[in-house]
């Protein structure tokens, strides 16, 4: 088997998964009860107007025709227009996407750095009083609801001390020459701090516990004993040998965590009025805004599938033993 056909198969697999996701999304929303017009009916509204809106969004056509148009547009990269928000689904998602990515990546990276280091450290200090205090603490933060944690941080750091703003991603009316200046401004970082911290506290438990259990397992392995017998220092054994092997599942968890977190931050986004994809998604589902909900879910699916792919790649570079199944034939 050549590398090209392997890549080709993987690609076809991905296309198939995306098609399946797109199809499920399409029918899921159309089978849900309730009219997509419900969000419209407050203003004076005649039968004629209702029909005109149905026509405008193609909702008057048979479902299979709608489905065909939907798939064709998807191929062209067109996610359609939102029912309720002005502009295309693509532009709405594009507007909030940088904020989502910033929040997700910053908090995940912090969570995984802290989690990995602390996990390795705790494995080393197995059985100490320190471990006895830390593990329940970690479990508590992992079990604590995000909104509660967020409100506590908000009440303390923002309302009481006044160190950080209570919401939003930028100061009111802040102006920037371009997006680069916007996302690397002190103002943006100041706004990012509390939601990022909340999410990081919530997320760090998983890498910590994963790292801890992997390390404990690996430290029983023969090659560690071998290294000890060679007289290597504890630090070298811990970092160069054990940690490197224990990291593998953590890397996978990180890559999948990005995919999951992209659309799953709605609680933190709401508490801190953060303009992210999660809020857009929840609102779209609640108001039967099919195209927007479909589009947002689809983007999340693309990110997840892509991150899966990245995880695979990282895996094979971190551990040469892991490569595609075909290679073993």
């Amino acid at each position, binding site marked *: 088997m050549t590398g090209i056909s392997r890549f080709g198969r993987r690609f076809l697999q991905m296309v198939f998964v995306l098609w399946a996701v797109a199809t499920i999304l399409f029918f899921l929303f159309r089978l849900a*009860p*309730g*009219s*997509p*017009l*419900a*969000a419209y*009916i*407050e*203003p*004076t*509204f*005649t*039968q*004629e*107007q*209702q029909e*005109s*809106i149905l*026509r*405008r969004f*193609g909702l008057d056509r048979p479902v299979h025709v709608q489905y065909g148009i939907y798939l064709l547009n998807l191929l062209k990269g067109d996610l359609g*227009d939102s029912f*309720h*928000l*002005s*502009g295309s689904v693509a532009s*709405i998602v594009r*507007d*909030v996407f940088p904020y989502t990515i910033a929040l997700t990546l910053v908090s995940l990276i912090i969570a995984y750095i802290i989690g990995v280091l602390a996990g390795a450290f705790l494995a080393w200090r197995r059985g100490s009083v320190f471990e006895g205090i830390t593990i329940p603490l970690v479990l508590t933060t992992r079990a604590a609801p995000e909104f509660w944690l967020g*409100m506590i941080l*908000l*009440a303390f750091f*923002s*309302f009481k001390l*006044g160190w950080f*703003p*209570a*919401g*939003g*991603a*930028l100061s*009111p*009316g802040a*102006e920037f020459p371009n997006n680069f200046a916007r996302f690397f401004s002190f103002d943006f970082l100041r706004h990012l701090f509390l939601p990022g911290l909340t999410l990081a506290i919530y997320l760090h438990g998983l890498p910590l516990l994963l790292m801890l259990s992997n390390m404990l397992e690996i430290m029983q392995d023969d090659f560690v004993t071998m290294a000890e017998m060679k007289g290597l220092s504890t630090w070298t054994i811990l970092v160069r040998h054990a940690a490197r092997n224990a990291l593998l599942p953590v890397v996978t968890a990180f890559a999948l965590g990005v995919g999951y977190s992209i659309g799953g931050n709605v609680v933190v986004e*709401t*508490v*801190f*009025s953060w*303009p*992210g994809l999660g*809020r*857009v998604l929840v*609102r779209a589902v609640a*108001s*039967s805004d099919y195209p927007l909900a479909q589009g947002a879910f689809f983007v999340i699916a693309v990110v997840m599938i892509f991150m899966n792919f990245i995880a695979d790649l990282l895996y094979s570079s971190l551990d040469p033993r892991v490569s595609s199944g075909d290679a073993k034939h």
Partner: protein
Amino acid sequence: MKKFVFALVAMMLAAAVWAEGDQIRSFELLSRTQAEDPTEFQAAQLVAQEWRKLGLDVEHKAIPWEQLAQVVWFDRDPPDWDMTMWRMVGRPERSDPDELIYNLFHSSTADAGYNFIAYSNPEYDAVVEAQRVETDPDARQALIIQAQEILDRDQPNAFLVHPQQAYAYRSDIWDPATVVEQSGIGIKNFWTFVDAAPLTDQRDMILNSGVVVQAINPLYISGATDSWITELIWDRLLRISPEGLAEPWAAESYNWVDDTTIDVTLRSGMTWHDGEPVTVEDVVFSFQAPQGDESPMYKPFVSGIADIAALDENTVRFTLSQPSAAFLTATLAKINLVPLHIWGPILDDLSTKDENAESYQEEIPIGSGPFKYVNWLRSQEVVLEANTEHFSAPEIDRWILRIIPNAEASLGMLRSGELNFLSGYLGDPQVLVQTSEGQPIDVVASTEVGFRYVAFNHRAAPFDDPAFRRALSLALNRNFFVQAAYKGFAVPSNSPVSTALGFWTAPGITDLETGIELAKGILAEAGYTLDGRGRLHYPDGVTEQHGN
């Protein structure tokens, strides 16, 4: 045992004698879910509890708004509901009673329009038709009051309350004397935004909304928050004054030539935000544009115009197809003035496409109003700046609307100064009042034009019987609802015309005598009977049309 059988037979006999018509079926009282509207949910629970005391089997059932709208509003043939909690919200143009008093209850709107309860009374139809074409305010007032008295008699709905909406602002930043309370709307209104004077060098008004801005489009009526923005960017010929009356704005004056002809003189020297002058051609275009199919939501507001023409370079003549009392409020104070040089080409282009003007979003919206568009970050904020060239230039520098979905955080922001005008607060009003104590924060609660009510489906017995509806309505003590469900932030209601609209409100209409015994008396008088188990039956000869 014998005694028991005897008692049973006696009870059955008694039941047969007392209850002559069929037993009335069980009802579901619909409402939104608790998460969507906790106050409405609470009110529904209390309503069901009161009506059970009359011998009815009423269960409260909460369903999400999309489904509720489907069942109650869209599926009219055949409708599958008996009673539901419902609301009409306040809007500036509803400060003219026509929209609510006509559309909600005129029999012509039962099939597809606002009269989803299918109330039908020829006498009422005649009165509301007459007020629509009565241009003398005093004569019209008499008709509006007459209409409310008919509704009081027929009780098509059980009106519950006109809610009060609480807003707040920093009194150390905004001069309280310049914060305007508009009747039926509250302090969050056009006049406050234009008039508010800063006391410090904080010259930006920073407001909040819990919901996102959907569109900024002068030809589209979208979300409620969106209308605050369109009102500021685009001028209208007339504006609804703080007292609720339509007064000249971009029009210098208007003059009724006869019942169906009105000449409007445009203020001179106005310019669009791009520097072009505002002309009578723009005005004519602004009213003609919605007459086509590109702006369906505005179409009803211009449908009464038979002809519109520029007489000279300052005057526009509107000819109406019939006299219309609400024309000033519902049309001249409603339609946004849009520039022909921008929207003309856009509409020409759209006329060949499926989409209409409602889905069009200008890159930089251009109006002639007191504020200019600066920036819109989706899900974050909308920034407008003062149009210093405007004939009513604002005192503030910038108007910044922040999207804050977290109600508790918005209170914290008001205290810290991150917000200086709380223009959207969906949390508990008592918490707002407590938060403001000892702070430089003014809380102002105003009665809304809108109302909350229980709607009955008149298409089937027993709701086709005014006596039955009246009994149910009078079983509800409005003051109890004000306190128990609305925590004091509401006033009793018995009319679609809010007490906030002083001039149009029928005097004493909300002085309802209520009580369970009173309601039982009305039912008994109308021939309804209770059986031995305390269940209410129809009057003799009336049969149940619905299965249980």
